[in-house]
């Protein structure tokens, strides 16, 4: 191999410019073969790395420090060790918020991925109106979560259209957002309704990479729809599954806007999540230390689930 045929990935001595006895052509060869970012220039990234460390990680770590204090937002504070975390796990309201967060996160993950995949499969190739329908299903994604939630709040209102429809068919009106058994489901419906279009687009992108020849060959061999989906389509869109499920899980874990706009965490904490509790404890009740502990817990939960989820959807082929 000569230097001129080397690639940036080639790590032979000639490519790195270290070959002995290269003569007059050595400098020319090594310069042409040098990778775009070579050894010795790592410090180019240093300002950006420092900024990220200082602004993002150090500031976050500084905020996390308050999780071990009793700071009320003004004045002095004391370090109280793990007392805030003990309070979190001893308080039924906080445990309820944690349960609600997990319910919404996994419900959201399942609902958006199942419906999004079904929509993507339905609108992938054959349907003539597929482009129009894709736009219609994607449209809620571009709207503000607050705006969408307020529209749904009107729909769920006791005197709203949903109860109106129930009335027409002779059913009793429901307190959709004020019934402890229904409110969390109502929030989940709104979350899923708005975001399913996003998942559909991710899966459509994945489906575009599935080779039609293989599907056709499988069909000719007598494989039915389900077997083709199970053994050809699904393995081919594994990267899309990983992306969509990770994004939806994280979005579900940090849900805030929809809960605040629809129920405010009520009735009596029935739809409270960790994110809404962080806001209320920190900013409404001035328990900055306790709020920081909740925020830290939420961050750790998201980190753990993100890692687990990545491991679960890892391509092992």
């Amino acid at each position, binding site marked *: 191999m000569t230097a001129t045929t080397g690639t940036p990935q080639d790590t032979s001595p000639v490519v790195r410019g270290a070959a002995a006895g290269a003569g007059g052509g050595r400098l020319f060869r090594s310069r042409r073969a040098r990778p775009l970012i070579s050894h010795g220039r790592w410090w180019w990234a240093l300002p950006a790395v420092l900024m990220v460390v200082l602004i993002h990680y150090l500031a976050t770590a500084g905020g996390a420090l308050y999780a071990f204090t009793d700071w009320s937002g003004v*004045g002095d504070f004391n370090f109280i060790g793990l007392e805030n975390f003990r309070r979190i796990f001893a308080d039924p309201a906080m445990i309820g918020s944690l349960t609600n967060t997990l319910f919404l996160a996994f419900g959201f993950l399942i609902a958006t991925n199942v419906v999004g995949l079904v929509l993507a499969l339905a609108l992938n190739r054959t349907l003539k109106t597929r482009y129009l329908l894709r736009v219609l299903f994607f449209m809620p994604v571009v709207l503000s979560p607050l705006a969408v939630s307020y529209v749904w709040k009107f729909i*769920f209102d*006791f005197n709203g259209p949903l109860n109106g429809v129930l009335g027409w068919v002779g059913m009793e009106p429901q307190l959709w957002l004020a019934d*402890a058994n229904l409110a969390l489901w109502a929030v989940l419906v709104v979350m899923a309704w708005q975001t399913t279009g996003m998942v559909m687009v991710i899966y459509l992108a994945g489906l575009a990479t599935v080779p039609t020849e293989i599907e056709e060959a499988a069909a000719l061999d007598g494989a039915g729809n389900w077997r083709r989906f199970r053994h050809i389509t699904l393995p081919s869109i594994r990267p899309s599954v990983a992306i969509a499920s990770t994004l939806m899980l994280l979005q579900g874990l940090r849900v805030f806007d929809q809960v605040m706009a629809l129920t405010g965490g009520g009735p*009596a904490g029935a739809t409270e999540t960790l994110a809404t509790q962080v806001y209320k404890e920190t*900013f409404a009740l001035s328990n900055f230390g306790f709020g920081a502990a909740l925020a830290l817990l939420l961050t750790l939960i998201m980190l753990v689930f993100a890692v687990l989820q990545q491991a679960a959807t890892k391509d092992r082929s």
Partner: protein
Amino acid sequence: MTQQGHGRLRRLGVLAAAPALGALTLAACGGGDDNASASGSGGAADSFTFAFENASGGAENPWLILAEEYSEEIGVEIETNPLPPDSYGLTMRTQLQGGNAPTLMMFAPGSGQSSSVIPLAEAGYLEPLGEEAASLVPEGSESQFGIDGEIYAQPTSLIPVGVTWNVGAAEEAGVEYPEDFDAYLEACQSLADQGKSMAVIAGAVPPNPGLMAMAISATRVYAETPDFNDQLAAGDASFAESEGWQDTLETIVEMNEAGCFQPGAPGAGFDGITQGITQGTSLSAFLPGTAANELANATPGLELDTRAFPPADGDPYLLASPNYVLSINADAEEAQKEAALDFLNWMSENAERVTEVQGGVPITGPGENLNPTYEPVRDLLESGDYAPLPNQGWPNPSVYGALATGAQGLLTGQGDVQSVLEAMDEAYSQ
């Protein structure tokens, strides 16, 4: 020196000049501040800044009106900063800690709310006020306006909190305001038969059920034990062991079971209150007196007044306290502080006008010009049969949060009276 050497020097010079220029610019800015301080010393400034809550966002806010009148009369410009109530406390705390808070600020008395004045006074962010402010503080309530013998907050007017009664709708429905709770429950049934409700509440917004619970506690708790909050602070009482507080929450359960609230009450917002009261489908609501005034002023033909919630037995009792106070930023320039203090003095000298604009009751008690809205409770105000809002005497906002959320839960069938009171005790001990 070589050409390369000159180049290095030039680059070094540029590098050194940038921070030097920055430092000079900052020094120039600092110098400007010093000059401003100096020019302001020796007398009141001709302008100052004033921040306050503005729930409606409109120009009819009482503080805006008063600031404009003061500027016109005295010639001192007040730069107003109306802020939304939900983030007001946080904004003020952040600005005070950041050193860029306005000179004059509106707060709530005591420690029980996110915009309460006492934690800020304890942290040293507020300026002690003079004798004039101290003379306005209701007797026995000094601990809600200051610490260590100093007063840090000037009260403006008393705001009665009870039942806002729709006189016109009541006449139309043939219902008189009940004298006791049994009569109240009977009236609930009678009104439900007419397709109306005795009370309209914003069940989806916890502070409204919370305010209702406090209004009911006036007769159940504070009429018999006016020093209940002092007993709590001393550790001699608890919510869970208080018969009065148990009665208070039981009353809410009974009202709910008797159909006293509008259909869909647990899911209703504040718009439900406005609609129910203005359209006459509900006869009453639990609102501060000022809100009732605003509602009546905004709706021609709507006749509202303020009543005490009917007692289970015994005499009626009311909640009334200065819900808003004004404080001066300790970090403001002396001239600015002096100008703000002049404004506070002007307000106490013009108490009648302040009361009229705010829709409250003069801090010194009801006079001849009592707002007609409060005529039904004039006797109670004159005889001192009222207590301040209970949460003003609680040590942190979480206690009221537990009461408000708990009262909401009683409406939706979540939890029970005892668990709500235990949650309040737990919050009190934080």
